[in-house]
């Protein structure tokens, strides 16, 4: 090897090592970013998913479970945020619940990172930002961006075709890492299947009455701005959507969970447990294939001229204009829908109500912003846990 050739290789390998080091450091730190949760006055206990399914102990998906017990008995509602972490409104709603909600009657069980592993990676080739921040009066809170699927570092490889258990339905290969395609889970399955199995155990053991899975959707997807419900929750979901549309100034529809579409929470939780299963969808232009720059700003403002253009061509299932879909609007839709589910359930079950206070409704979140409801961890010694 000549001197010139050696120098050439040293320079190129040196550049490669620099790229490896900088990208590796970024991936390493974003995977380990700590997300504080200031336990609100309503939190009475924090457990982890391994309390319901021991094989998950110590894994990436041994997530925290927050219990908010009411002063009086009543219904139990489980709220799942972070099934798809790259749909941040759902996670932020669960943060607001954990840091603010007080339950007067019944019990609230809140999960901020349903697929915790999926919060630790971003989409390959998607140019996602590694994290995003919400401004508050005391500073800002930074959250992991996350992805739709379990981090491949925790579950790999994927099969050629994913066969859902127990239905045998064939799904896209990558959905074996999608927690909302593997319900009701499998005791001896993959990490993602075991995670769903752990949640089914929680639902059965804690006698959950209502399970709500919080999501967001691209505007090109027909299931958007809606409540998807198992057939046993149709009356409840329909009444909730009618009330919200009439009283709160935003439109939200109802979709019925197809009986033969398997793996989703609104189908399998309702089929395999006594709980009513609902799934909320709010609009997130960040997920649209026609989006422009995939930035933190776009994620939080929902403004995107290219998605607007798609709308002008009639390609969308939800309206969008230059105002976009700000995160406060998306979060507010979910908080109001949750509160309305509790209220409407109580009207049907006067002996088993669920009364939740200190949670902002749609107009409150828009007026004050999401950050108003996130509290300063520095002023909450002994009341901070991490996701």
């Amino acid at each position: 090897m000549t001197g010139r050739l050696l120098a050439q290789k040293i320079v190129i390998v040196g550049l490669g090592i620099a790229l490896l080091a900088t990208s590796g450091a970024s991936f390493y730190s974003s995977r380990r970013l700590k997300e504080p949760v200031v336990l609100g006055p309503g939190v009475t206990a924090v457990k982890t998913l391994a309390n319901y399914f021991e094989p998950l102990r110590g894994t990436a998906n041994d997530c925290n479970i927050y219990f908010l017990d009411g002063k009086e008995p009543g219904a139990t509602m489980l709220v799942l945020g972070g099934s798809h972490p790259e749909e941040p409104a759902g996670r932020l709603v669960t943060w607001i619940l954990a840091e603010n909600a007080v339950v007067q009657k019944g019990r609230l069980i809140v999960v901020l990172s349903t697929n915790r592993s999926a919060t630790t990676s971003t989409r390959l080739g998607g140019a996602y930002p590694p994290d995003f921040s919400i401004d508050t009066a005391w500073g800002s809170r930074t959250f992991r961006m996350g992805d739709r699927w379990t981090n491949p570092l925790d579950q790999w490889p994927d099969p050629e075709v994913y066969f859902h258990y127990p239905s045998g339905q064939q799904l896209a290969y990558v959905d074996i890492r999608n927690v909302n395609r593997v319900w009701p889970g499998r005791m001896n399955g993959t990490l993602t299947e075991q995670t769903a199995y752990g949640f089914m155990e929680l639902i059965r053991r804690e006698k959950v009455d209502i399970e709500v899975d919080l999501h967001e959707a691209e505007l090109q997807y027909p299931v958007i701005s809606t409540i998807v419900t198992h057939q046993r929750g149709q009356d409840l979901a329909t009444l909730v959507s009618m009330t919200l549309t009439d009283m709160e100034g935003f439109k939200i529809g109802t979709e019925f969970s197809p009986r033969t579409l398997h793996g989703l929470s609104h189908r399998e939780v309702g089929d395999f447990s006594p709980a009513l299963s609902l799934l909320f969808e709010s609009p997130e232009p960040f997920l649209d294939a026609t989006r422009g720059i995939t930035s933190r700003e776009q994620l939080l403002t929902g403004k995107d001229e290219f998605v607007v253009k798609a709308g002008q061509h009639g390609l969308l299932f939800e309206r969008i204009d230059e105002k976009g879909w700000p995160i406060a609007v998306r979060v507010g839709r979910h908080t109001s829908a949750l509160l309305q589910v509790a209220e409407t359930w109580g009207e049907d079950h006067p002996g088993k109500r669920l009364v939740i206070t200190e949670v902002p409704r749609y107009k409150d979140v828009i007026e004050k912003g999401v950050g108003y409801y996130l509290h300063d961890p520095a002023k909450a010694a002994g009341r901070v846990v991490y996701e």
Partner: protein
Amino acid sequence: MARAFRPAVGRMAERHSMPVVTVLYYALVAFVSVILIVNLLKSRKWERDALYVLVLLPFLLRLLRLK
């Protein structure tokens, strides 16, 4: 009425250990990485050197469990 749920049997529970297929995939990644490094050392053109280094990066990121 909720349907009865019967857990599957027959697949090993993975717990903290890596499944055999994952170990095999990591071995494949290591094998391809070695081939790329050998080719990098043999190559005499800088364009090929740069290409080998770029292709090698995602393999090393996975081997080091960074991405």
